[in-house]
């Protein structure tokens, strides 16, 4: 079973301070984000089932739930805010994969547990921390809460991790390993993360972004909206080498370049870099790539007709990932 057609985005969900939906992402500002209250997952999901769930996973559940609902994959009764979550339709759940990107999500638990053992002993640590010592805790929480039995992957791949997760979600669909894939990029800010990175706590992203990807034919057959179409992807050392590969062979120059930070366009076909998401939310690490894809959806919703080039990582990182997203009309192109 191999899908032949394009892979499309059919749902977006966000758990971010100060921004409610994809349409508002392109206009997000640092001032508005700083003025906004942190996301309170219990307000969005209800308290049930959150007690022993780490904050990164809670944020991911908020964004993931909204993306599944946006894609029309949650039963209608569960789509209303505050209602308890039901699983994705039983028959469909084996066909839904989960792909999470996070670099820092469980660092606070890991470091605090290790520090407690070093100071005292294992008697002083809580066994409830056991799942969170494993870096796939968030992907597992998403699968369990929404009943998603497909492949379940966690990328902790540094600066490019979010875009890598979107690529691999598309790859799982194309390989026939799932019908849909829920992709969530999440990071959380806390004293451990801030201390290890040497940055103030309020400078780092504390939030999540999620998208749903599937084969265009699958989306059309079930009447789902196409929000964007995934184009070429590459992960290579350096911005120039990456962008060159992404843009090789068309289909035309991008109209917008969503970048991780300020950068010189690596060629005449590339418009000026827009590092607005990092400026607004702070360094987003593993969440960035998914956040960028959500912003591209907002960009297309506002009427953009040219492809959007998205890159995560810089020449200072081990590599740069790039992905071309195209606006996707309804029906086959």
């Amino acid at each position, binding site marked *: 079973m191999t899908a032949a057609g394009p892979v499309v985005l059919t749902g977006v969900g966000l758990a971010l301070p100060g921004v409610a939906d994809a349409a508002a992402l392109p206009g997000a500002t640092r001032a508005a984000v700083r003025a906004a209250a942190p996301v309170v997952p219990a307000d969005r999901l209800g308290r049930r089932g959150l007690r022993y769930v780490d904050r990164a996973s809670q944020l991911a559940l908020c964004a993931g739930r909204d993306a599944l609902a946006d894609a029309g994959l949650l039963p209608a009764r569960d789509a209303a805010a505050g209602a308890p979550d039901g699983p994705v339709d039983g028959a469909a759940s*084996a066909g839904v994969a989960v792909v999470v990107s996070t*670099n*820092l999500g469980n*660092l606070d*638990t*890991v*470091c605090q*547990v*290790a*520090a407690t*053992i*070093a100071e005292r*002993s*294992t*008697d002083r*640590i*809580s*066994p409830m*921390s*056991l*799942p969170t010592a*494993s*870096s*796939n*805790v968030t*992907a*597992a*929480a998403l*699968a*369990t809460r929404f009943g*998603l*039995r*497909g*492949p*379940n*992957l*966690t*990328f*902790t*791949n*540094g600066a490019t*991790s979010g875009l890598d997760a979107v690529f691999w979600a598309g*790859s799982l669909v194309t*390989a026939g*390993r799932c019908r849909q894939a829920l992709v969530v990029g999440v990071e959380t800010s806390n004293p*451990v993360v801030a*201390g*290890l*990175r*040497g940055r103030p706590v309020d400078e780092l992203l504390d939030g999540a972004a999620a998208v749903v990807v599937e084969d265009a034919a699958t989306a059309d057959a079930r009447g789902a909206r196409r929000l964007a179409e995934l184009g070429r992807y*590459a*992960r*290579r*050392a*350096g911005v120039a*080498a*990456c962008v060159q590969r992404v843009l090789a062979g068309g289909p035309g120059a991008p109209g917008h370049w969503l970048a991780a930070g300020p950068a010189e366009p690596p060629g005449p076909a590339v418009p000026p870099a827009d590092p607005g998401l990092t400026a607004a939310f702070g360094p987003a690490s593993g969440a960035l790539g998914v956040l960028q894809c959500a912003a591209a959806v907002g960009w297309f919703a506002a009427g953009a007709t040219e492809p959007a080039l998205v890159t995560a990582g810089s020449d200072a*990182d*081990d*590599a740069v990932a790039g992905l071309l997203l195209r606006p996707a009309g309804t029906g086959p192109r």
Partner: protein
Amino acid sequence: MSWLIAGTGAVASVGGSTDEVFAALRAGRSGLAPLRGFDPAKYRARSAYEIDDRPAPGTDVPGRATGWLLRAVAEALAGAGLPADLSDVPVIVGTGLRELRTAELGWQAGRPVDPADLHFGTALRERFAAGWTYTVANACAASVCALALGCDLLAADAADTVVVAGTDALTESMFGLLDRVQLDPPDQVRPFDADRRGTLLGDGAVAVVLRRADDGGPAAARVRAVSMNCDVAHPTAPDPRGIAAAIRLAHEQAGVTPADIDLVLLHGTGTTLNDAAEAAALTDVFGPAAGRPLLTAVKSMTGHTSGGSGLLGVVVAARALATGWVPPTVGLREPMPEAAAFRLVRDTAQEADLRLAQVDAFGFGGVNAVAVLERAGAPAGEGGAP
């Protein structure tokens, strides 16, 4: 379709290369030793399966998992006859604990940790000029999930060669949390034993070079298929139904039936729950053929090498297929009742004519991955036609 395993590399408590590791396992030598890197007074468990490469006893250093990974990848490339230049070759690293030990040490010393050193792309870039790299943190199924992704890149024609790897060093948080829940800690890992008391972690790294089957050349074995799924049952406990579904999916994708499988490399962690769930799933899927394949659990000698353990099973299975020798499950005194019908290899290595092997890997969060391997050069027989 199937993919050639053109080269392998391995580093574990029992040896520093594929040859050394396989020789040790075939001889039934265990890497169990008193706990070296952490203060034993803090733990109930006093032993682990560590790689003895620290500068001094009780002195832990950052970056060990990364160092072994580079060694294993270099060995696999050399074995495949490839240069140490991965600028256009994808590298997919499965890991349970990535460089979290480096983060723990940094936090305790009040020292900043560069986030770039928590994943493996940074070191792979420095050593092999690699840019197309992934760190997949999929708990104890990670490196077999990485193998699945590597096969998908080859199937999609995105690459002709892929390096798949796994690596893990003990973290104090994971060793400690397991210690917290294993109140009567095991003296050693005893997979599928009636009196098994839990698992003990081990250090290790492993790598394979996968190539398109039509590239020819010598190969240890072929990968026929790798399945992935998720139990959605419990954060840490396995679910036999999810495991059985993953095994069935792997057989289906490989085009084989349970009766075709000659060897099963068990996930076999030595915990009460894992081994019971794995035995139930095997009994369910294999049915009347449950007594046919040889079964073994190398964690009895390497300890639980976390995310890298599944791919270590792949490398051991490839050697077993090539040599006909299956390493024993050491320390097995009385098989658990649920495994009474199984042909567990005990005490000493067993020789057999092997064509198809299954490798199990299951992790926290209910993530399951199962690989089916075929002996290179084996004639396609019944149930074996691709």
